[in-house]
Structures are given as structure tokens and as C-alpha cells.
């Protein structure tokens, strides 16, 4: 029975017992194998926002790469809109690449340094098969305006923008192809608090206008508290806790989640507590 059958169609992304292993490298395989994901299961409904938190090495970025089909997986399934990601090819794969758009922590790496911001964003429209030059330019300017940038910045080169402006441009680039799912990997970690607030508000506004679902990977629990209805806590490649954000933060079950919450500083003046070493 194909995995996708019988799935409620409101589910956009379903992962079931997803596992992947990085083989040890080098002649002697001294590193040994690393289980990067171990039987990870979760689902994301259409229009939902899911936060994935965990520390370095918890597998959260690997999970994003698997969803984007940039990293293969060994066992389990991940289905996007009912279709198994691993088996996609041809136009179906191209379609996945369009419908799922990543935004990374360092937007500088997202842009070709020699292309103007406008032409980088315009490439997205070419992907959609919309080649009419004048139309593309108008769309680019409208998108820049939507993300709160001066449309005249279409002519700017990436290095001429500030960090916050560059992140907005990266969001415009992702939205150009009208994705159904945005994967955000630490999108505001490099930004100042006041700029972070602007960008987080922008995500909320754009979601209302464009109606995409969102997965936000971060180590910053308060950001998830503000942005996401659901929360997945990962450690060493495994899901240690998941549920509605308010419930998980209010009544964490796993000691690891409790440790993450205790270590997260808040402006209230709460003392960050180091976790017990295990």
C-alpha cells in the first residue's frame, strides 16, 4: 500500500520513522557512522507553522535538507502533498523544488554577488515560465515592496544591502515562485533584536497574504513561542517532544525540553540556568 493513500488531504508534509546515517569518512573511516536522524516522525497541516528546536548536532538542519531532497534518507518516508519525496523525478521533482523554498541564516550566501537583487529574484519567475520582461520587472518591484523594501533596490548588489534588508530580499526571492511551504533555517539569528522583530512580523503578514505553511528551525525558543503553533524538540537525531507550542513550553514532559526552556534567557530578568550535564 502506498504510504500516501488514506492520508487526510489537509496534511502538507508527513514524515514517518525517517532515518538517515552519515557514513564515516576517510580511508580508515575513523569518524564512524553518525545516525543523523533516527526514526523522526511528524506532520505539518496546510497553513500550519511548525518550529523545530534543538542544539547543534540535533539533526534539525539535516531534516530540512531531507525535505528539500538535498540529502538522501535510509529508511522511513517523507511525503510532500501526498507524494513520496524520494521517488520524485522529472517535472514532479521540479515542482517540489518550486513549492518548497528555503530561507537561510546568511542571506548573503543565497545571492549571486554579481547579480543585482532584482535579477536574482526575477530568476524565480523564469522558473515559473514567465519570461515576459516587463511583467517580471513589475512583479519583482511589487515583491520588494511587499517585503518592505524600496522597489528601487532591484538594481542594488547584495553587498550594498544591510543584513536586515538582505534577509527581506531573500524572503522576496523565496516568495517569487509562490511556494506552499517555506523552510526557515535560523532566519533571524544574525539580526539585531529590533530588526528581528520587523522580520518576524513580516513573516506573519506575508503568511496572511500568501497563505504558505512554514517550518522554522532555530535554537531560539522565544522566537518559536512568537511564530509557531506547533513545536518539535530534537536531540541527537531524535524527536524528544512535540505538540502545541503553548503546551510544550508551559508543561514540558522531557527533561531536555525543560533544560532548553531554563537556558533560554528572557528579558524578564530570568536567570538562565545551565542544564544538568548528562
Amino acid at each position: 500500500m502506498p504510504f500516501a493513500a488514506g492520508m487526510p488531504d489537509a496534511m502538507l508534509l508527513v514524515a514517518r520513522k525517517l532515518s538517515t546515517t552519515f557514513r564515516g569518512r576517510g580511508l580508515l573511516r575513523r569518524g564512524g557512522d553518525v545516525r543523523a536522524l533516527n526514526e523522526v516522525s511528524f506532520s505539518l497541516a496546510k497553513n500550519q507553522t511548525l518550529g523545530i528546536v534543538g542544539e547543534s548536532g540535533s539533526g534539525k538542519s539535516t531534516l530540512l535538507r531531507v525535505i528539500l531532497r538535498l540529502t538522501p534518507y535510509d529508511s522511513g518516508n517523507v511525503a510532500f502533498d501526498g507524494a513520496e519525496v524520494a521517488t520524485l523525478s522529472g517535472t514532479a521533482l521540479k515542482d517540489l523544488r518550486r513549492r518548497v523554498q528555503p530561507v537561510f541564516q546568511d542571506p548573503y550566501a543565497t545571492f549571486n554577488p554579481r547579480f543585482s537583487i532584482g535579477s536574482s529574484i526575477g530568476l524565480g519567475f523564469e522558473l515559473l515560465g514567465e519570461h515576459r520582461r516587463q511583467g517580471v520587472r513589475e512583479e519583482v518591484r511589487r515583491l520588494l515592496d511587499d517585503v518592505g523594501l524600496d522597489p528601487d533596490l532591484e538594481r542594488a548588489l547584495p553587498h550594498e544591502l544591510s543584513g536586515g534588508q538582505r534577509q527581506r530580499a531573500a524572503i522576496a526571492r523565496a516568495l517569487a515562485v509562490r511556494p506552499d511551504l517555506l523552510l526557515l533555517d535560523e532566519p533571524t539569528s544574525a539580526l539585531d533584536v529590533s530588526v528581528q522583530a520587523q522580520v518576524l512580523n513580516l513573516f506573519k503578514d506575508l503568511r496572511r497574504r500568501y497563505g504558505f505553511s512554514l517550518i522554522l528551525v532555530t535554537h531560539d525558543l522565544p522566537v518559536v513561542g512568537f511564530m509557531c503553533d506547533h513545536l518539535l524538540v530534537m536531540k541527537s537525531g531524535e524527536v524528544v517532544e512535540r505538540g502545541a507550542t503553548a503546551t510544550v513550553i508551559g508543561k514540558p514532559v522531557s527533561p531536555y525540553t525543560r533544560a532548553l526552556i531554563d537556558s533560554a534567557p528572557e528579558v524578564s530578568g530570568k536567570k538562565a540556568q545551565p542544564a544538568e550535564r548528562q
Partner: protein
Amino acid sequence: MTDSGLAPESLLEVEGLTIVLRHRHRPPASIARDVSFHVNAGEIVGLIGESGSGKTMTAKSLIGLLPDRMDVVSGRVRFRGRDLLDGDDPARVRGRDIALIPQDALHALNPVKTIGWQVGEPLQVHGGLRRRRIASVVGDLLERVHIPDARRRAVDYPHQFSGGMQQRALTAMALSMEPPLILADEPTTALDVTIQAEIIDLIGELRDATGASFLFISHDLALVSSFCDRIYVMYAGEIVESGTKDAIFSHTRHPYTRALIGAAPRLAGNPERLPTIPGRIPRPHEEIRGCRFRERCPDAGTACGEAPRLETADGDHAVRCWYA
């Protein structure tokens, strides 16, 4: 405390410090303007501000680490009653009297020298200790910052240490000459939250054990709010508010500080939209008449055309605003 920073226990006193960036085609731009603050013995003081606020350059000027094109043009820095800006070579102060824990641990460490060698280098330069004695002190230092199996790990190279352990090693290096003052420049920015909490805890522990003072430089209001005794908030090169942790967070007076606190998301009970600050921080070369926050300020009024001074409101709480 009711004094203006001249208490007998005052370790570092900075008065009217102004730093400019020289420019070939433009008049010099001010990076820090008339910055005054003090650090008492055994205190952890936070210097916070966003990018471009001048916090890092203010700290670097204390130990003579300003970039070539920047100069201190006025002001006085007194450390234990000694004037640091004229006379003394900053390199003699650096490491021995005032140490720095830098931001990016991996880049701050030399990849081809062992951790032990690097932690012991200040002892060699300033202390003139014998080799064997240095090795033993280094072992003690690494133990003090809780490197597991410290004596054996001293021969490891930086890449064999995790990010948190590298930051601990740099902290050990800063401690090596038992300096009375340690500048910590965003020492936890690159670390995971649980590791960050450990480093913060370590700083508190070291202060209690050694009596050293810390000047903690950060953009992270939430972090600073958790453990600093007193806090200075910088905006566009100026200190806009200062006071005890409690004064800054529970009796906030400056509109910028209030906006920063509001802009940070919380674990729970967030509003639908985060309050934001319109506009952007002025560039150093932009000449602004009156209050530097005026253009972005929700409370701005007619008085703001004239630059406000940092006025002490009550006790140790000072604010640079006509309407606070």
C-alpha cells in the same frame, strides 16, 4: 549608591570618551560620543546596544585595540587611578590588568598551537615563569573553567575542542594573569543556548571566586538581563540609559530601551505582532541635530531639537531624554 562613579571601590572610570573614524573624503565620523561609565571591583557590568551603537569600539579603546583609522579624540580612562590614555603603553595593560574574551573562539585561537601553549602565552609574555611552572598553572586554569580531564586536554589543538570548550579555553587565557578586569565581547553569540547558560554561569562563578570585574558587551538584552549587576544601554554612539538591572528592566525610562525590551519575543504570552522601532540607526557620519533617537522615537516632542544630556534620575539610574 548615590555618587557619580567616583566611589573608592571604582576600578575603571571612563569619562567623556569620544572616538572618531577618520575618513579621506569626509569629515571624521563619531563612533562613540561623550561616553562615561564605571566598573566597580567585583561587578559584572553590561554594555549593550545593537550593531553600530559603538559598544565594541568603546571596549576596544580601553586596551588599545582600535582599528587604524579610529582615534580617541577626547575623554579620560582611569584604571585603578592610573590614566590609560596618555602615557602607558596599552600593550602593557592588555592581558595583565585588563583581559579580553573575544567573540569568535575558533578564529581567536591559533590552529597550529596547542590549547595549553596558548593559555600559557600571557604567563610567558608578562610573567616570566619557568616552563614547568607554566604547564602546572595552565592545568589549574583549565580545571577552573571546567575542561574535563584538563591536564591531558592541554596538549589538544583547538579543532579538537567543541565550541563551548574553546570559549572556556579563551576564558582560561583571560584569567591567566589574574586581571582585575575582564572584557567579554559577546562571548556566547556563537554557542548553543545550554552552552551559553554554562558560560554565563562560569563568569558568575569566576567573579565570586577571584573577585574580578567583568564588562560584558552584548546585543542580547535578554541575556544581559539575566546576570549583570548594572547595565549601560548605548544607541548611535551614546549611552542613553544606565542603572541597575532592576532599574533598567523594571523601571525603564528611555524610549529606546523600552522599544528594545518590547521587540524581544517571549517564550509565552506574545502579542500578535512584536512592537518595532521604525527607521534605522543613524550612520556615524550623519549629522543629527538634537536627540539622536528623535526620528524613531514615539515620544519625541519639541524639546528634542536640542540634544538631551545624560541626567541622573534617581540614585544610580541615569537617562538621556527630555521626557523620561
